[in-house]
């Protein structure tokens, strides 16, 4: 072991904020189904608190021994619409509250999986779950919700898209005293993945085993620092540099995941190769893009820069771990990235550019505050646009927007912690209502004649 390498690792962690963003334990709740809602919830609480009993403690011990921060410990569960569907309950909020109780007992930061998959159509359970979302988000603290409204194989469920526009608005209204915070815990997907460790969209897919551990790494600061050393050099060099760094970052994830899985006696699932920013200085994806030569993220060239970054991160990470999964790529949440916030404030980054960026990055319109008076149909239309990008391009896309109650363009919404703060962004004022009100389904795309 060379001194230089030891110091490089220490510097990455201390100065460049390399961290493991999350270890997420996926727990199947299929064996908790019961025709009596209260009994089902008791089984859920028992199973989750038993399985995740040592998750936080083990995470902290690994942090201590290896000297690498593990920012969050989380749990994802089988979509609750599938579990609660067998019960006679009309409102599923109580299920969300049980998940919240589990979070408090086990000490995890978030529980994901208050979810429904309605890309092709609704079951009765899906319908009840979606209607319960606003109340569930308003009465719980640690529960995250997601709804999948489209997929490449089944097209886009436009009835669900329309409904989710309204649900987002209602969730904001129910959490108006916290500036619409409920919407920060609600994400609408197309092509949702079953093994995603990141919130708000994590859930434990039915194709997964009973209990697994997934790891999400992070480290935009490390990539930025590496690119500082190759200023002005061609993109071949940029790509190689990102790949090498992504390899190193991902090795951390693999190590921590393997160690945690051994100590907890739970199989290791996947590493999600991601660059997840935080509002902290030096932890920004936007600054990486600017380091490539853009005066501000959002200007012409941003999409190309992001495409290169996203692809190089995957190429570097794939060889560094045994199984890759989740969303794997660069996240571009606005409120959680200091560079994105600055770009919006200086007028360089708008919603239209962000939408273009989502065609080449790992998720979608993420943590964006829009004016409180944005109509539900406009939000639904944003969801439809994002879903279309995902469905046509065979990738995951998502929408997590916050119509901040009472706020207008130019004001700021404060969420605190990892969620950061978001400048309220302008939306197109022309109506999409007649489009959204049609309902029905947009058929699945053809996979030939690609142009």
């Amino acid at each position: 072991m060379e001194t230089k390498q030891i110091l490089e690792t220490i510097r990455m962690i201390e100065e460049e904020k390399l961290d493991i963003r999350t270890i997420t334990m996926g727990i199947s709740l299929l064996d908790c189904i019961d025709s009596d809602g209260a009994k089902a919830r008791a089984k859920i609480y028992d199973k989750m608190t038993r399985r995740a009993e040592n998750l936080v403690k083990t995470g902290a011990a690994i942090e201590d021994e290896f000297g690498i921060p593990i920012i969050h410990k989380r749990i994802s569960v089988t979509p609750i619409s599938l579990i609660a569907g067998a019960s006679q309950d009309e409102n599923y909020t109580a299920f969300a509250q049980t998940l919240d109780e589990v979070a408090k007992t086990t000490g995890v930061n978030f529980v994901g999986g208050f979810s429904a998959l309605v890309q092709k159509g609704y079951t009765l359970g899906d319908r009840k779950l979606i209607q319960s979302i606003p109340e569930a988000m308003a009465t719980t603290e640690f529960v995250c919700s997601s709804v999948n409204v489209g997929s490449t194989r089944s097209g886009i469920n436009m009835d669900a898209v329309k409904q989710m526009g309204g649900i987002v608005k209602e969730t904001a209204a129910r959490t108006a005293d916290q500036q619409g915070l409920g919407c920060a815990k609600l994400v609408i997907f197309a092509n949702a993945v079953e093994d995603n460790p990141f919130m708000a969209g994590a859930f434990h897919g039915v194709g997964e085993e009973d209990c697994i551990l997934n790891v999400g790494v992070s480290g935009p600061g490390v990539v930025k620092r590496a690119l500082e050393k190759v200023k002005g050099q061609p993109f071949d060099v940029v790509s190689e540099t990102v790949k090498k760094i992504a390899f190193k970052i991902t090795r951390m994830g693999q190590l921590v995941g393997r160690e945690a899985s051994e100590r907890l006696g739970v199989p290791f699932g996947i590493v999600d190769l991601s660059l997840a920013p935080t509002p902290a200085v030096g932890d920004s994806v936007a600054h990486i893009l600017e380091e490539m030569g853009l005066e501000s993220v959002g200007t012409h060239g941003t999409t190309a820069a992001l495409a290169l970054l996203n692809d190089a991160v995957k190429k570097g990470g794939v060889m560094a771990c045994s199984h890759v999964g989740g969303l794997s790529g660069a996240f571009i949440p606005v409120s959680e990235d200091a560079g994105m916030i600055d770009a919006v404030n200086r007028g360089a980054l708008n919603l239209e550019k962000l939408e273009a960026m989502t065609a080449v990055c790992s998720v979608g319109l993420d943590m964006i505050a829009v004016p409180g008076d944005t109509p539900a149909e406009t939000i639904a239309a944003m969801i439809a646009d994002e879903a279309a990008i995902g469905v046509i391009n065979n990738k995951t896309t998502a929408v997590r927007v916050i119509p901040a109650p009472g706020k207008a363009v130019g004001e700021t919404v404060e969420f605190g912690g990892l969620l950061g703060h978001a400048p309220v962004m302008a939306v197109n004022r022309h109506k999409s209502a007649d489009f959204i009100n049609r309902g029905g389904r947009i058929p699945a795309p053809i996979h030939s004649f690609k142009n």
Partner: protein
Amino acid sequence: MKAILTVIGKDNVGIIAGVSSKLAELDVNILDVSQTIMDGYFTMMMVLDLEKASNSFAEIKESLSEKGSALGVQIKIQREEIFTSMHSL
């Protein structure tokens, strides 16, 4: 279990003596040492063997950190795997 110890701080009399006597007290064996002055800072790295150590990792970490404060340097101890996994295939 092997671990890497790093000591960084302002150069002073007795840092190596202080650190190694503390390690001896904790029954920690030193396998390798490298020490240099980088940018005016005392920088030392040790490869340690904790097999025979009488205390837990957390306790060793805690008492080394206290020793560091007394010597006016920063002492870190991390499991070796974090470095080997990052830098070797």
